């Protein structure tokens, strides 16, 4: 009996020692902490996608754009009003969620992949607005026949060059070390994870799953698909916004060119490979791809020597830029064909097999 109780809490204790105690005592190398912090930040955004794709069955191609909304909202609030990071981060999430609703409203009425199309539009329109808000102001002026004349201009958003962002401050001390970044990200990841888990367990969560599995049947059961899909999409963008705020304040600078369609696709791929519709899916997927990217960066000098020798027409400089999308695309394809339910599903199968094993005596 006590052995079973023990087996339930030892993973948690181990995780606490590994992820909190060791970093807090400064016993882990900075490089590792930086990697973990980057995994955590991306994982928050991918958790949002998980609520949308994994639990509701809708595709968003604009997650990076919503991360961008969060990053810029938090940065601008901190720069213009001096608002504390701890307030601007939730506000950034809220702003991203509202912008998300704006794009979700027209497309979630119709079924199929129309949300993918609307979010593709978001992925172009949002950076366009942030790079040159004055153009949007002109447009608003035209559309309201000159009644409204907004005075937005690119001093607010930094235009094409981007913004410098102040580091978060906690009880008078500036959090600008990698360790502080790691611990903050870890705290937000834990909250985001628990929230995701609770949403999935509520009535809303079950409604989302019902919509994913069969929208018609869900409707017959009295679930209003439009409302619930909107809720899921709002949460998805909200998670993106929070990830964006973390990214902006700890990287200390943001540039409008960092939030690309490729990044949105990458997040989708991370989710699918990790296991969409599994709570742990985002963590698995993001960890796998971040580790692979880290390895690619490490072996690039070797690849630069080897690849052009094997294929004489390849230029050395192209080796650097080509391997990341190449490996990403290949991994995602292999998973889609051989393990479409993702790593989390595979792990669960292994665990089940382990539990069902014949005890050897």
């Amino acid at each position, binding site marked *: 009996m006590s052995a079973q109780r023990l087996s339930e809490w030892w993973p948690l204790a181990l995780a606490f020692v590994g992820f909190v105690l060791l970093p807090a005592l400064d016993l882990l190398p900075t490089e590792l902490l930086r990697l973990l912090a980057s995994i955590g930040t991306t994982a928050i955004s991918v958790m949002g996608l998980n609520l949308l794709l994994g639990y509701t069955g809708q595709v968003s191609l604009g997650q990076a754009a919503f991360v961008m909304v969060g990053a810029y909202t938090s940065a601008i609030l901190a720069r213009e009003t001096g608002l504390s990071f701890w307030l601007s981060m939730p506000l950034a999430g809220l702003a991203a969620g509202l912008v998300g609703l704006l794009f979700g409203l027209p497309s979630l009425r119709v079924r199929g992949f129309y949300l993918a199309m*609307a979010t593709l539009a978001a992925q172009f329109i949002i950076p366009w607005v942030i790079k040159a808000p004055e*153009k949007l102001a002109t447009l608003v002026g035209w559309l309201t026949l000159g009644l409204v004349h907004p005075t937005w201009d690119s001093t607010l958003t930094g235009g094409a060059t981007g913004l410098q962002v102040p580091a978060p401050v906690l009880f008078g001390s500036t959090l600008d070390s990698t360790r502080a970044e790691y611990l903050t990200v870890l705290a937000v990841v834990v909250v985001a994870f628990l929230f995701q888990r609770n949403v999935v367990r509520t009535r809303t969560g079950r409604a989302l799953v019902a919509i994913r599995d069969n929208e018609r049947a869900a409707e017959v059961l009295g679930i209003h698909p439009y409302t619930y899909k909107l809720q899921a999409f709002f949460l998805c963008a909200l998670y993106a916004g929070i990830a964006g705020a973390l990214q902006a304040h700890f990287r200390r600078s943001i540039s409008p060119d960092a939030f690309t369609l490729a990044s949105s696709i990458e997040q989708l791929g991370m989710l699918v490979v990790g296991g969409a519709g599994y709570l742990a899916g985002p963590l698995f997927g993001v960890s796998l791809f971040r580790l692979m990217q880290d390895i690619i960066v490490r072996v690039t000098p070797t690849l630069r020597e080897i690849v052009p020798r094997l294929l004489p027409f390849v230029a050395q400089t192209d080796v650097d830029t080509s391997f990341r999308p190449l490996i990403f695309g290949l991994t995602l394809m292999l998973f889609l064909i051989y393990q479409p339910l993702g790593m989390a599903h595979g792990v669960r199968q292994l665990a089940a097999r382990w539990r069902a094993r014949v005890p050897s005596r």
Partner: protein
Amino acid sequence: MAECVVLGKPCFLLAQWLMTGVMVGSIYSLVALGLVLIVKASGIFNFAHGYLMLLGSLFCVTIFQALGEQNLWLALLVTALLMVAVGFLIERAVMRPLLGQPLLTTIMMTLALTQLMQGLITLFWGVSAIPLNIFVYGPGDMDPATGAALTGLPLKPLILESKSWLGGNIIIKQQFVLSFLVSAGLVLLFTLFFRYSRTGLVMRAVAENPRLAQAVGLRVYFTLGLAWAIAALLGAAAGIVQSGGSGVDGNTIPLLALRAFPAVLLGGLESIPGAILGGIIIGVVEVMVTGLVDSTTGQEFAPFLVLILVLLIRPQGLFGQREVERI
């Protein structure tokens, strides 16, 4: 005679933009046709079409250069054969294992394909734009000023006399006229092919229900492979027509394909005439907005605003069928 001015711009400029827009739009129509074809045959929306365009034009450039820039027709023929092979390969290796999987999986697969193809193309051809000399008249064409071999387009702009009634002459780059003619010809060819051949019908049957189609003896796999091959051909054609003027640019061509998505949705997902009209409308919108405001607004904002409006007002598109569901 009074100056003709609308929206603060002289009329001849507006007319010029309108005509250029139609011609640019013809390229979008060609891209949209390739997208609609895959939707019709397999219900898959192919996000990787832009990379098929890029691959086709890169094949063409490489073969053309390998042949000493002498024989364009041979280069085009070899490119076409290669693209057919690529189309069948994609269907066999990538899409066939997913037959019967949900829509989301197939969308993810075409997205994965974009990344894989981007990586491969970067590895083999690099990231900088490659000039494509196909419109140079013949070997030995020199730039009169520098004596260097011409890499750009030596075609003279076309001037339409309209000074008397629009207040200025309409000037149109001939490369646009050429791409318009090529696009229009190909669009016509494929529209006729689908209307008057059995293949179009078989493709619809396969899209509707692959298993049923197989049961009545249709060659499902071959038909799907054929659809991908034709889409790859159409993509290559659009890519070559586009880059004949400006060179093959790995950054702009996939973006161009993304701007054809609003065209497809505007026309109606499964409608060939819709794709053609949608492409032309998007082209006109893009060029007009580019003229009136600037090019980022025309290319990154306006087409996608159209997309949002379509979703808001008429999600099935101009010629699309409202989805009827039987439970």
